[in-house]
């Protein structure tokens, strides 16, 4: 990967305050396409807030966010998803009373049957698209090895399976960039391995991941690049091993 290539996702001077707290403070960073970029930092560094700003859940007070050079800040969440950025939640937010398969199918973008009139009339193309989406959903489910549970209610899954479901749901959107908020926190080692292998496979196929993670083992082994945040702004970035040995990062974690 040449460093000359423009970044896929870029934030410039992004700021967001909650009352007197500057959760994200003049934050400028860039994500390269086709890589897994880790985002680390002590609690309260502003990592999740930054994700929420990128995903359009909060509007930044100043600064800009661009995807492949196109400004996306200030747009509603659904438009940002249409542009190709999808976020998972730190705590899985499955649709409890939909089945696992339906959780994936509902995530498919641009379904003509999601308009009431088209649904009422029952166009053939609506239901043909529905069949395509079902096929794709089953493929994604077998990728994350949840296919045996496709007809179970999502609330019957274990915590780790819900994390897999959350990842699988984002894959239905064919995103350019996936924002993963602690994808393996609280997941057992076997499932963690499965989840991370899935992410790496997708990276090798060209997807870009931006991942908040506290587990340093995971960050060291799986991330291509790491950005460390402290008090709302990046303090170091680069190869995982370099960032780990960075003096400022150590101070941030140890409160030095």
């Amino acid at each position, binding site marked *: 990967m040449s460093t000359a290539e423009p970044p896929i996702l870029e934030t410039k001077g992004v700021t967001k305050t909650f009352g007197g707290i500057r959760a994200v403070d003049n934050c400028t960073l860039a994500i390269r396409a086709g890589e897994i970029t880790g985002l680390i930092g002590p609690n309260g560094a502003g990592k999740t807030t930054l994700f929420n700003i990128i*995903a359009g*859940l909060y509007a930044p007070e100043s600064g800009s966010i661009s995807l492949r050079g196109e400004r996306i800040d200030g747009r*509603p*969440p*659904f438009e*940002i*998803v*249409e542009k190709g950025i*999808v*976020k998972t*939640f730190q705590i899985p*937010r*499955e*649709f*409890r*009373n*939909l*089945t696992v398969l*339906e959780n994936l*199918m*509902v*995530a498919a*973008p641009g*379904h003509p*049957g*999601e*308009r*009431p009139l*088209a*649904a*009422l*009339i*029952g*166009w*053939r*193309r*609506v*239901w043909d698209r*529905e069949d395509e989406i079902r096929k794709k959903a089953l493929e994604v489910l077998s990728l994350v090895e949840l296919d045996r549970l496709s*007809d179970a*209610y999502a609330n019957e899954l274990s915590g780790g399976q819900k994390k897999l479901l959350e990842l699988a*749901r*984002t894959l239905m*959107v064919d995103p350019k960039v996936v924002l993963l908020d602690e994808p393996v926190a609280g997941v057992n080692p076997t499932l963690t391995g499965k989840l991370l292998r899935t992410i790496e496979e997708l990276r090798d196929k060209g997807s870009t991941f931006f991942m908040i993670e506290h587990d340093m083992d995971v960050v060291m082994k799986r991330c291509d690049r790491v950005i460390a945040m402290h008090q709302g702004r990046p303090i170091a970035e680069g190869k995982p091993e370099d960032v780990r040995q960075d003096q400022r990062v150590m101070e941030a974690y140890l409160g030095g």
Partner: protein
Amino acid sequence: MVEAIGILADFARFGSLVGIFAMLALALNLQWGKTGLFNAGIAGFWGLGAYVASMVVTNPVPSALARPGHWGIDQTAFPSLLGVSTAFSVGIILAAIVAGVLALLIAIPTMRLRADYFAIATLGLSEIVMNVFVKNLPGITGGVEGITQVPRPFEFGREAWKTELSYFLLILGVVIVLFFLLERLVRSPWGRVLTAVREDEDAAQALGKDTFSLKLQAFVLGAGIMGMSGAFFAFWLRGVSPPPNLFTAVDTFGVWVIVIIGGSGNNRGVLAGAFVVPFLEFFSVRAKDWFSLVEPLATQIFYFRLIAIGVVLILLIMWRPQGIFPEPKFVAKRPRWVIGR
């Protein structure tokens, strides 16, 4: 024989009311059961529909010293179709549209509120519409007197049972058609995405769904159906009058009871539930004759329905919180017939 016909008319009249409440409950099931919208202003949409339809099917009455008067349309303006004035169809459609427009106006500022605040907003706005506007616009709405002498689509003069039975069959037909249309709607990808909005709106948004617009669609469509139900109610009652006689929060809660008892999210359940509230009313009015009750029980029995609803709700919440018929497992289902290539 005469008595049997009287009973038939009585039951047909009761059946019509069941159908009218079934329409309301199906509409609430779309809003709450599927989309999770806590509409506590049902009486407002219902009442507005009833008033609009009443004005369409009656001649205008000018204000005078002794009577408030109300708007109307010169009935000779409506041609007859198969012996029935087209005023009724126009009234029903206009009732649905006006209630839908009211829903749109209410929804735009309040739709982003969380469930309980949305409930308070809809309750307040519907009370304002009925108590402040409808009640206080003599010359337009008939003020506190309301609108009387609203006709029915089929009148058979002295043979009351024919009038009641034909009206019941009309309502039955409307409820059946409405049921199948709504089933088709909610068992589609649209119904599925509404369910996703109900389950977790933030997550639906994070997956790229325009949840505001989806909620708006369900709310406006539901309110339109409530307005239509209001039109049928006005014809059924042959008149409308403002709160506290009609269209109060008690009606709203009655529809909620129907949906909770029948099974939120299940249209079949809601139809079953629609028998309960009108039946308790029907029963408590007639119980004193059926059981030859004497005072004071003959009067008190009328309030039996309120106790009964309370008991039924408590038992249900304890033992079957999902209602008599729980929500079906798979939302979207390919319909038996599709059109187009």
